């Protein structure tokens, strides 16, 4: 069952410091309210994967790997390839992560990243059909959190997109229902680039890209995923607090602008 989480004793002690700073318009790591932490994206770090990317977002580290395999389509979408997003909060990333089946936070993260990719139609799934109703390509995106210093959703979404941009597959054609892989290597059929921006509310102030200390004292967070046309394709509110309608509208418009910067950065890292 989903249950209220306990705040660590250290976080409780730090709570006052973080909140006091925020109320003075400062942040624990000296950033402005709308400053993103330094971000680096490295593509193709895992040779065995079809595509991979590592993201450093401040001290947060996330790796995503893409594998492309053959499989059977879902009955209600016989002509579409399949996208699956999974995430692992591996125990080496944080003292609060435990081994075992994914908990609700890991599932939430994977599903929010999945929605961004799926709803922006980032992958042209029609182009991954081999034989209608029988055989399609399946794209597995596996997200590995390696170091948790806050804002895992944004880092994971960025790594997932990076890995998809990096992913390659064999060109193929189909004759009499038989799949023939050609020698030529082609990129995945991408047509959109969703980017997530997470904003947290601490006391009555909102700040972008929370670090772990801020995340632990936040009342709530809002993730807004936008595509290359500045349309919103996914949103998720989390945490035990509430937003006013004005805060939500403000966050949406800030997120669109920030997402443009990040998108440009990811696309620049390809070339």
């Amino acid at each position, binding site marked *: 069952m989903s249950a209220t989480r306990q705040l660590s004793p250290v976080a409780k002690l730090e709570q006052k410091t973080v909140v006091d700073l925020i109320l003075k318009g400062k942040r624990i790591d000296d950033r402005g309210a709308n400053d993103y932490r330094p971000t680096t994206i490295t593509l193709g770090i895992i040779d065995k994967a079809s595509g991979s990317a590592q993201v450093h977002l401040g001290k947060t580290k996330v790796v995503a790997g893409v594998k492309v395999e053959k499989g059977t389509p879902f009955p209600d979408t016989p002509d579409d390839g399949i996208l699956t997003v999974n995430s692992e909060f591996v125990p080496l990333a944080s003292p609060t992560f435990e081994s075992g089946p994914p908990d609700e936070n890991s599932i939430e993260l994977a599903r929010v990243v999945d929605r961004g990719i799926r709803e922006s139609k980032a992958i042209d799934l029609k182009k991954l059909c081999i034989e209608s109703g029988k055989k399609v390509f399946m794209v597995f995106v596996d997200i590995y959190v390696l170091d948790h210093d806050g804002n895992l959703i944004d880092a994971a979404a960025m790594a997932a997109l990076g890995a998809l941009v990096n992913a390659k597959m064999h060109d193929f054609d189909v004759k009499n229902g038989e799949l023939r892989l050609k020698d030529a290597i082609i990129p995945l059929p991408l047509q959109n680039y969703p980017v997530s921006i997470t904003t947290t509310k601490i006391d009555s102030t909102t700040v972008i890209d929370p670090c772990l200390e801020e995340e632990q004292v936040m009342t709530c967070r809002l993730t807004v995923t936008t595509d290359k046309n500045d*349309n919103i394709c996914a949103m998720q509110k989390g945490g035990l607090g*509430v937003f006013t309608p004005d805060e939500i509208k403000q966050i949406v418009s800030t997120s669109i602008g920030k997402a443009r910067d990040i998108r440009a950065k990811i696309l620049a890292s390809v070339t």
Partner: protein
Amino acid sequence: MGGQKKTAQLIDSNGLRVDGRRIDELRPIKLEVGVLDKADGSAYIEHGKNKILAAVYGPREAHPKHIALADRAVVRCRYHMAPFSTDERKSPAPSRRELELSKVIRESLEPSIMSEYFPRATIDIFIEVLQADAGTRCAGITSAALALADAGIPMKELVAGCAAGKIEGKVVLDLSDIEDKQGEADLPVALMARSNVVSLLQMDGSLTPDEFNQAFEMATDACRKIYEMQREALKTKYHIVRDVEEKNEIVEAKA
């Protein structure tokens, strides 16, 4: 969104939807409070073809003990769909979707619950979807808020949920099953109406910022309407309170 192929025209030439509603019209909603005998609080909602039961147990002793918090009650929530609630049988094992929804539903109700009154206890919320017809998380929240009130749990106020979305390029309120599967966007919202704050907000699909604002207004307006229905449902169950209220009105009228 559902990604299903379009099989039907979702808005006709008169601007009416498949079930005859206008674009800003809610489906019929029926609310009933105190429907289960053993639960400390319970409520039943029919929202369109959704049929959902919510039950609350607690505050009760935390079990296992180690989950207890020293400064407030642990709020736990389980959202679950019955195997027979959908077109195709759903496995009774909790899916990833149900686990995520349990979390966001809990986070939508918890801001209202005054859990600090019950340290070391748990408040358990169970939502069982008996029949699903799109918008189950919102209807689940609406009913669970009533069940919490029925259990006598101190709350800042009620929480009401409703979704808006987009079909055939138009922003519409409260998607039905077919609209959800063939539509272009879904925006579930939960609102604490008196203080006008949002405790649940999710979105999937594609909306321009303007469409988002429009859908958001539509959904929050509907939440306010549902909030009034929730109040009526509570008054119907606790009619003694209503009697007192009416008497007071009579006294006021005389004075």
